[in-house]
């Protein structure tokens, strides 16, 4: 692969990128003082960097192509790694124990700062799992998901401000508000398909944010709402540190609840209908599934989790304003779902932890973290468009699903 042709290709690529990045990377003008700064050393860095990267890029592309070819000709046994682990008790039991221990000791061994980040990541796990219902299972691209998150957060902030309601009271209310908004917004837009649906949900998301920003009497506008209380525990006074640890465990609990419910939904009659809808709308209707209701239920179920997560978010930051609910937030949650692996619970958890923790721990290169983040998204999609984890699906085994029915077991084939 290091033949003359390849070297020529890489050489041309590096020349091209040197040309491409020339004005932005090399020249910097200061229009006030009329100084032009020339940074030639960067050009060489780009040249050398792109020369070698282009080798790697082509090598990986070739490997991907080859893998596809082999899979077609049936030359590889393609059980994804996550399923292989999940099948082997001697792998997954210790792994599960290790994760549990880690989760339990985490807030006590790591700093307050780390715990706060972890809470943020866990919020994304919940929103990611919620959006996964809409995008991953039902196949509806929703770019305005953050609207429901905002609805939850503002529900808590306003109900607390006006009526002094506490976290635990508002948590279900927030979820309910998400649900209601999901139905309200879902109803008119679900006739639309694909990208049109995406752009209209984007529109709705922006409308809600802009209303929050401008309707001062209602939402206090851009200045937002401060002094939102953290979750209480039987009225016990807690220090900031204690409160954070408490919130951490509340989040762990909520994540577990979410996983539990989402998995149940996924494996139910409704969940199957969602997946079937994603696979083929026409056939789905021909099987007697009500398209509108099924779509709406997915939309509303997704929104519910966003509403709940919004309440937690408000409680965690104790201050909210519309700037927390921009389109970027929707996009990041979408990335969590797609990067992790659509339709996969473990994938979404993976995606949330990677996407939220990675930039935080990249603070060492703090300036570069969003740059790297963007590049990672592109590279991931180019080389693994299905996400990190391929979706794990419940395999309905005739044996497994009916343990209390010996008759059924007997008639099961091998």
């Amino acid at each position, binding site marked *: 692969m290091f033949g003359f042709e390849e070297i020529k290709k890489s050489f041309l690529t590096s020349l091209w990128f040197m040309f491409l990045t020339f004005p932005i990377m090399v020249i910097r003008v200061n229009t006030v003082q009329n100084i032009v700064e020339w940074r030639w050393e960067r050009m060489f860095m780009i040249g050398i960097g792109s020369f070698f990267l282009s080798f790697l890029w082509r090598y990986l592309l070739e490997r991907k192509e080859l893998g596809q070819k082999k899979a077609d000709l049936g030359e590889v046994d393609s059980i994804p790694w996550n399923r292989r682990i999940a099948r082997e008790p001697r792998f997954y039991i210790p792994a599960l124990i290790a994760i549990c221990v880690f989760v339990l000791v985490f807030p006590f061994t790591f700093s307050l700062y780390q715990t706060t980040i972890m809470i943020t990541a866990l919020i994304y796990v919940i929103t990611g799992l919620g959006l996964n219902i809409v995008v991953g299972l039902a196949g509806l691209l929703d770019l305005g998901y953050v609207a429901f998150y905002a609805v939850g957060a503002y529900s808590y902030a306003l109900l607390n401000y006006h009526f002094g309601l506490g976290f635990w009271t508002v948590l279900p209310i927030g979820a309910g508000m998400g649900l209601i908004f999901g139905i309200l917004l879902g109803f008119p837009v679900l006739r639309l398909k694909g990208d049109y649906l995406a752009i209209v949900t984007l529109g709705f998301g922006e409308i809600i944010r802009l209303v929050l920003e401008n309707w001062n009497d209602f939402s206090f506008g851009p200045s937002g709402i401060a002094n939102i209380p953290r979750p209480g525990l039987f009225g016990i006074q807690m220090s900031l540190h204690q409160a954070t640890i408490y919130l951490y465990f509340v989040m762990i609990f909520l994540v577990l609840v979410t996983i539990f*419910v989402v998995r*149940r*939904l996924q494996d*139910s*009659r*409704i*969940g*199957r*209908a969602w*997946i*079937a809808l994603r*696979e*083929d709308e*026409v*056939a*789905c*209707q*021909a*099987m*007697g*599934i*009500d*398209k509108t209701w099924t779509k709406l*239920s997915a939309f509303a*179920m997704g929104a519910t989790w966003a509403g709940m997560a919004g309440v937690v978010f408000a409680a965690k930051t104790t201050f909210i304003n519309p700037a927390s609910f921009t389109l970027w937030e929707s996009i990041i949650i979408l990335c969590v779902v797609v990067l992790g692996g659509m339709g996969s619970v473990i994938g979404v958890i993976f995606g949330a932890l990677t996407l939220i923790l990675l930039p935080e721990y990249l603070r060492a290169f703090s300036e570069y973290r969003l740059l790297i983040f963007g590049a990672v998204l592109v590279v991931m999609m180019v080389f693994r468009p299905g996400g990190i984890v391929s979706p794990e*699906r419940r*395999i*309905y*085994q*005739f044996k497994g*699903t*009916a343990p209390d*029915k010996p008759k*059924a077991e007997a*008639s099961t*084939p091998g």
Partner: protein
Amino acid sequence: MEPILQVNALTMDFGGLRALDRLDLEIGQREIVALIGPNGAGKTTFFNCLTGIYPPTEGEMLIRRPDRKTKKLNGLKPNHVTEAGLARTFQNIRLFQNMTVLENVMIGRHCRTSAGIIGAIAKNKATRQEENKIVEDSYAVLEKIGLAEFVNEFAKNLPYGAQRRLEIARAMATEPFLLLLDEPAAGMNPLETRELDELIVRIRDQEGITILLIEHDMKLVMSLSDRIYVVDYGKKIAQGTPQEIKNNPAVIKAYLGEDADA
């Protein structure tokens, strides 16, 4: 014999194109009826009108269900048509490719079951029982159709002929009294076609399901059907028993080819 499906003067226009032209059709209970005609004659359009995918421009479609209630199909949504007891397969296979064979059939049980969101989350006894029942019933359908060996395969990994049969299994799971098959033998080899022939007869005899099929394989059509309708340009040009159709000069001209008997 009282018809269980009666179609009167069904007309369907796409823009300026008339795909169906005042088509009349009747099917009696436990009949196997074939709809034949050249490609593009409007056969699939007819199915799409019946099953609520296209709203017909004119005409009337009536069914008489086993409970003797009469129902008009015009204006029903596809899912309500299925609930009313019509199920169909598609010309170009439309399985849920990334679901397993069993799950595909389980989707067919959807309209005959009722567990909702609350039930899904709580997984109470009724829901569990229903789920078990769905699995059991679906498996039973698969056994009947002869697909039990593939139960946990992904639909997309099935051989072509098996995919066609899975479409039938999935339709059967919705408990239809009238089954609409759109080119069920397309792409099957002679052996698979023979098996299909037996399967269709078995579905009629054992389950008492009436069958309307579109098919190009004349051998299959002739051996299988009680009656045949021939359409061309959206119009019915002939109807009758296989023997009558074989000897009908208009049919030979339009479809079988002028010198098919050469």
